């Protein structure tokens, strides 16, 4: 155990754990988006899907694992960021990027990460633990999440903040996805450009894909 702990504390393994948890979170982003996507098929489809999901007893295990992944990613991020600050106690008088390395996305990882975390708390509190509506399909009573989200996104600033947070998530993944591979040591001239491209495309896809939901809901106009 102490043997393991010794390695977990090193700069490299910390980053590798962040990479692995980050990639798993990318997977979560995709599955969550796929679930959300069902909203385009109408209330019955969306509600029966979400009912199946939340009434499955395994959901608690899945949620616990997800929370664990989030927490490890966040805790490591905080630790790494604090250590990095401590490594340069005296700041530079002027500091500019060369233009050949850092990007807006890479240099704002702690900020976008913080935005995502804040959003996450707001998101869970206001939707998962938000108002409880019910609907009945084929005699089964279930939570009417469709009504909840449509109603929720009638408020303009909800839409605005959601899109802002998704832009931050996209920016975070834009650098994070590629960075995870680099931390794990997956780097080869043969496929580097492919990973870079997928990383950027994934970031843009996340930002646009998720932003479409609140806009769609808003346009439903409370029906």
């Amino acid at each position, binding site marked *: 155990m102490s043997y393991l702990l010794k390695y977990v504390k090193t700069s490299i393994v910390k980053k590798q754990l962040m990479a692995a948890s980050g990639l798993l979170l990318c997977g979560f982003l995709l599955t969550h988006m796929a679930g959300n996507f069902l909203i385009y098929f109408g209330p019955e489809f969306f509600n029966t899907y979400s009912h199946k999901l939340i009434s499955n007893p395994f959901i608690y295990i899945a949620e616990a694992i997800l929370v664990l992944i989030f927490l490890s990613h966040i805790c490591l991020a905080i630790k790494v960021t604090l250590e*990095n600050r401590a490594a340069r106690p005296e700041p530079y008088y*002027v500091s500019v990027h060369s233009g050949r390395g850092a990007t807006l996305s890479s240099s704002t990882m702690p900020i976008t990460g913080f935005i995502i975390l804040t959003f996450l708390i707001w998101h869970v509190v206001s939707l998962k633990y938000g108002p409880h509506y019910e609907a009945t399909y084929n005699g089964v009573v279930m939570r009417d999440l469709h009504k909840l989200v449509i109603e929720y996104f009638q408020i303009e600033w909800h839409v605005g903040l959601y899109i802002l947070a998704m832009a931050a998530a996209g920016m975070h993944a834009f650098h994070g996805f590629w960075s995870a591979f680099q931390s794990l*040591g997956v*780097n080869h*001239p043969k496929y580097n450009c492919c990973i870079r491209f997928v990383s950027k495309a994934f970031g843009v896809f996340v930002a646009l894909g998720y932003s479409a939901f609140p806009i769609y809901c808003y346009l439903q106009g409370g029906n």
Partner: protein
Amino acid sequence: MSDQHNMRLSLKIWRQANSLSKGQMVDYELDGVSPDVSFLEMMDQLNDKLIKEGKDPVAFDHDCREGICGMCGVVINGQAHGPEKETTTCQLHMRKFKNGDTIVIEPFRAKPFPVLKDLMVNRSAFDEIIKAGGFITVSTGQAPDAHTLLVPKGDAELSMDAAQCIGCGACVASCKNASAMLFTSAKISHLGLLPQGQAEAKTRVLSMVEKMDELGFGNCTNEAECEANCPKNISISNIARMNRQYLCSAATHPTM
């Protein structure tokens, strides 16, 4: 070139008496700087002037002034070794600046690189990393015949690329996290890619990384500013190689 091209520069230079005192930026005006001189020659010119005025000259590190020793290095206008790509401070020329420019000159900054005086920093931390594993064990005696050990061409190339690192510390200086990963990985790749470096390959990566962390360098966040500012264009693919070798070595090392 005639004197009419000479420049007048405003310099903002970090002055600090020793590692314990607090430093500050001090303004200097320097006239008659030829565009043909190197950056360090411009600094010499300033120091001549300061000495004539009975003031303390600015301390800065330098040795070969040929771009090969890795001794020089300051942060110029926010960039380690200045604005030119793949160029050490000593190889930077004043023709890269314009008459009337303000040039901000600071030491490389990182906790493990304490300022000794003005622009001179103590980079012994790099020596500590090398001592931890940046070597190979060889039998003394007669030099072996050439080609006793065959090295695949591709490996030799990659190793030689990594071996170009001159240990200047610009990677640490330009990293927002003051991480020494580029330097450390260059040394690990340089030795680890060759057959002579195999015996200690696993121990090397584990020990050097452990030392690097212990010295207080930051964690890499893969921004590649190190590569961009490295005068020898050391690639961050070396960092990836170190990352995967670390993982493998940690999992399979027989004793560590």
